[in-house]
């Protein structure tokens, strides 16, 4: 084989090439270039590029700047997209778009002697973008191919970006070991931003091994069926350095097939349902608790009705007593409701029952002391029975009667409450089986685990009750 003829090779290169000297005058141009600019070689040689194809606009300046840069630095420069009208031999102008690469050709001393330009006419692309309706058939085969590739790349990137940022999570697992080759941002967040790419599931997410998911992936990969799950429970490490957390996912596994139909991987998609499942669970608990409380309250009201009717032969008195007891229960509920059913200040309970009486007759005092919800209901009913007894038979039935109520916390943290009536000339010990005394005894000793000292002194009833911390401080989830 003989020596390569570089001049001939240059001439037949399919892409347009030309060479200018440092004055930007043509020294060479190949056939493709001559066709593109619609000139003959003699028309170009020795002529200035900018005299032949004048352009004082921005494109001309960019082209000149690129040549200057290559000559000054000796480094190649590319103009990716250059609008540059071309004057035809007949004097008219064609609007053309170019991609131009400028390469320096150095002399023996290493200085830039010439600059070679390779241009690609991208006018068809430009037209395509300007008028998206141009049918593909009007483009050259090469252009169509290039444009399709460009579109495919763009759309692939778009799809990737869409999946990457989708609110649901996506992952692609490749091969029989389920190696991560793609995971969306939301998938990464789901698993605590751990490194996944190139790792099999069992290595990347070790905590899921033994929870049945790998066996499912194996089945999808081998059998090619689609697995779907709703609100599936999984213990997942959601944050680095923390224990796996209970997580609920709607998800599906889809086999990925190649054009031959063989399964190459598994496409995973889903949504994190943990918050929704938790909310539904909480709602269920709240409804259960509400039912429980309503039923317990109804049982209490039922008992009040039954007790009141049993104790009284006078329907008018029974009705009055019943209403007063229900009102006392209702006020206790309201006080608890104000404190989110947590606790109540004992002072509020006492005030609620005794506020209606004249301060010259009734005094009460004590420090702020919180009692839990169960003790609130119990003490409200107790104080109500003591007060109504005082109104009917005791200190509050007489103008000269006097009632003092005081409470404090003793050295064992017990709540001590003293109820002292004075000025009652004829004190009669009430019926031991009466509702009031039965309630006092059962509430203090039975329900709250405390002690009750009930005395009928000359001048009036004196009650001292002592409730241990466990009876009024301990918090509970519910009452009853």
């Amino acid at each position, binding site marked *: 084989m003989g020596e390569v003829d570089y001049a001939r090779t240059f001439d037949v290169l399919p892409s347009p090439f030309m060479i200018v000297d440092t004055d930007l005058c043509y020294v060479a141009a190949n056939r493709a270039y001559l066709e593109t600019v619609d000139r003959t070689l003699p028309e170009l040689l020795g002529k200035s590029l900018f005299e032949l194809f004048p352009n004082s606009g921005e494109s001309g300046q960019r082209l000149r700047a690129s040549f200057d840069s290559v000559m000054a630095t000796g480094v190649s420069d590319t103009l990716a997209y250059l609008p540059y009208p071309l004057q035809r031999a007949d004097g008219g102008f064609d609007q053309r778009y170019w991609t131009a690469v400028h390469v320096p050709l150095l002399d023996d001393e290493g200085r830039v002697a010439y600059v070679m330009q390779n241009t690609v006419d991208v006018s068809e692309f430009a037209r395509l973008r300007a008028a998206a309706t141009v049918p593909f058939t009007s483009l050259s085969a090469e252009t169509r191919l290039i444009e399709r590739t460009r579109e495919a790349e763009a759309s692939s990137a778009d799809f990737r970006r869409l999946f990457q940022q989708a609110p649901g999570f996506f992952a692609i697992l490749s091969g029989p070991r389920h190696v991560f080759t793609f995971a969306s941002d939301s998938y990464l967040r789901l698993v605590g931003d751990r490194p996944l790419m190139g790792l099999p599931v069992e290595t990347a997410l070790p905590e899921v091994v033994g929870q049945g998911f790998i066996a499912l992936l194996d089945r999808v990969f081998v059998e090619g069926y689609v697995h779907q799950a709703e609100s599936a429970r999984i213990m997942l490490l959601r944050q680095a350095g923390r224990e796996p957390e209970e997580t609920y996912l709607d998800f599906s596994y889809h086999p990925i097939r190649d054009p031959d139909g063989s399964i190459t991987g598994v496409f995973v998609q889903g949504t994190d349902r943990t918050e929704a499942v938790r909310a539904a669970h909480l709602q269920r608990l709240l409804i259960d608790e509400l039912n429980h409380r*309503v039923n317990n309250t109804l049982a209490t009201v039922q008992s009040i009705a*039954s007790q009141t009717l049993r104790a009284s032969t006078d329907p008018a008195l029974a009705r009055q007593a019943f209403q007063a007891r229900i009102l006392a229960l209702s006020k206790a509920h309201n006080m608890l409701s104000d404190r989110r059913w947590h606790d109540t200040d004992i002072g509020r309970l006492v005030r609620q029952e005794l506020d209606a009486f004249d301060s010259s007759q009734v005094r009460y005092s004590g420090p702020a002391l919180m009692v839990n919800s169960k003790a609130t209901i119990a003490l409200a009913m107790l104080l109500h029975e003591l007060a109504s007894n005082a109104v009917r038979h005791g200190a509050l039935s007489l103008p000269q009667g006097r009632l003092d109520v005081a409470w404090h916390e003793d050295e064992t943290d017990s709540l001590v409450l003293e109820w002292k009536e004075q000025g009652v000339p004829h004190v009669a010990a009430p019926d031991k089986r009466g509702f009031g005394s039965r309630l006092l005894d059962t509430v203090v000793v039975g329900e709250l685990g405390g002690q009750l000292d009930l005395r009928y002194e000359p001048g009036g009833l004196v009650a001292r009750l002592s409730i241990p911390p466990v009876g009024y401080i301990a918090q509970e989830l519910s009452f009853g």
Partner: protein
Amino acid sequence: MANFSGRRVFVVEDETLVLFNLEDILADLGCEVVGQAMRLDQAITLAKSVGDVDVAILDVNIGGATVFAAAEILAEKGVPLLFATGYGRDGLPPEWQDRAVIVKPYSPQDVERALAPLLGVATGT
């Protein structure tokens, strides 16, 4: 109303007023309350020490705790159990689901109907 005269009943109920109602119902049925607790520690102690019992009526939720620790002691002694709860049967854990339940609020007839089979008494209702 059936006569459960002399039947010995063990009662756990943490609310005074609800307890009064149950005591009255049991008295009307002729039952004798041989053990009565309103708090869990008390219920456990009493369940251990109590003598012969024909049936136990147990409030499930007592002061925020559950009665099951006391229920186990009574069940081991072979005492028939009747749970009382505001939650209904769903409020019972699986191991106690097959036991008798009455839902609060209950009527004297509810208590009678629930106790009859546990005491081996036909009520005719």
